[in-house]
């Protein structure tokens, strides 16, 4: 159970149960859709950019379509990037990615996902929301999938 406890850390279970910023944002200036075609997980991400920072952010997952890892990751991501500039948000994405690849632990509560790297089949669950954020910030307008991304 020890390694399961490391995967499903208290903070992840908490954010899975009560996701933060779990809302549609009608005022969003950027939107993106993320899909994990392997498991059918889907996320709608709404980002409001005011000047040079993310003033608000929200996400939705259709009923039952998010596992604990993907939902908690989206929730913690929204908390982590709110108020940040797009460049800072992208830097956090990079840090998060590095952690999943076995590198240094990401800052703050994002460190809760360090246990995911021991579960290769779940890494894409953790990165789904971040790929959607990246697409929203790039303003591509195209839905992203965990499969089209060059790496996780």
């Amino acid at each position: 159970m020890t390694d399961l406890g490391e995967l499903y850390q208290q903070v992840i279970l908490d954010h899975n149960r009560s996701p933060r910023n779990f809302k549609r944002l009608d005022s969003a200036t950027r939107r993106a859709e993320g899909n994990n075609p392997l498991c059918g997980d889907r996320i709608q991400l709404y980002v409001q950019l005011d000047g040079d920072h993310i003033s608000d952010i929200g996400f939705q997952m259709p009923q039952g379509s998010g596992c604990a890892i993907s939902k908690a990751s989206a929730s913690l991501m929204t908390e982590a990037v709110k108020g940040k500039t797009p460049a800072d948000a992208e830097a956090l994405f990079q840090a998060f990615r590095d952690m999943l690849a076995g590198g240094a632990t990401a800052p703050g509560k994002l460190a809760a996902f360090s246990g995911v790297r021991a579960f290769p089949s779940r890494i894409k669950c953790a990165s789904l929301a971040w790929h959607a954020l990246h697409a929203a910030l790039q303003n591509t307008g195209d839905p992203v999938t965990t499969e089209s991304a060059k790496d996780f």
Partner: protein
Amino acid sequence: MIDTKRIRGDFPILARKENGQRLVYLDNAATSQKPRRVLDAIAHYYSEHNANVHRGAYALAVEATDAYEAARTAVSRFVNAWAREGVVFTRGTTEGINLVAGSWGRANVSRGDTVVVTAMDHHSNIVPWQILCQEKGATLRMVEITGDGRIDLADFGRALEAKPKLVAFPYVSNSLGTVNPAAQLTKLAHAAGAVTVVDGAQSSPHLRVDVRTIGCDFYAFSGHKMLAPMGSGALIAKPELLEAMPPYHGGGEMIERVWDDRSTWNKIPHKFEGGTPNVEAAVGLAVAIAYLEQLGLEHVAEHEQQLARVAVERLSQIEGITIYGPRDHRAGVVPFTYGDIHPHDLATILDRDGVCIRAGHHCTQPLMRRLGVAATARASFYIYNDVDDIESLVAAVRKAGELFRVLAS
């Protein structure tokens, strides 16, 4: 009866440990494990008989051809095919269905025609028909299912009023485990003038199948779900249909003569076997069939249905578990969800105890939408599974409940 203890000894992979635990393999609807006899047959083929088939004028090539054609005879007997020539080797069910869609379908389905599938079909028995219908301007009609996971016979009847050219359905549902009344559905479809295609991916491994009793026109199955190698399988067809059909893949083997600008075709079934076939897979499939015949398909079916009954009963005792599919007429497939725990989380937690189950949409997204779920967890049984495996499953599911509730509270 099935002696699981003895059978387990035939499967080298079942001796491996998963996270220090006994491997409890419950994803048999996805693929089965392979007995040593099949593994040995593949090695033996390559060690002793390998050559390209149907063309060599030397002893080795004759041996390879004999082995390949003997496998065809074995498959023909296994399903009681209309004729040996009506057995086309394929890479599996998906290729078999695509062959029918790409050959029979292209030649016989036109603008305004209807093709019927069911809402419980696997994507491999939906998408080829979507592609065909889109190309031809034909209509694809999906028959609804009942609340307890059977084909809705009233809706099936309504679909037949359109006088469809072709009706396709699964003998056994991979997502629900429903055993459909294949002979009855075929009879109804024939009465409406349709040709019938039966997806046998989940029936051939688990039931005694007799295509002449079903009475269908095409029957496709995969070897890898029934102890044989991946990339093995066959399409069983009425010979007169194959004779009339245009080729599917052009290439070597499938021709009679080739001129600069045109060709004539080889006899059936070779007309549909362009290119060097997977001889190793056919040889392995024949050995797998012999293994299953020795056990007796009736005993296999009974064993799995018994395991499914026990699994349904034991899982039902856990508060928050929902089980999908019919109460009766269920093969060894038990799909379930557990409260608001996502099936992928369940599968990860079970894996830590060595229990392998499937989580996801099982390549049946139209069915998942009708069930109102994004995904389910699915346990599916085979000849080497026993009640101990179900106890391991149930214990691991309970553990998942504790992890998510206790730690989350």
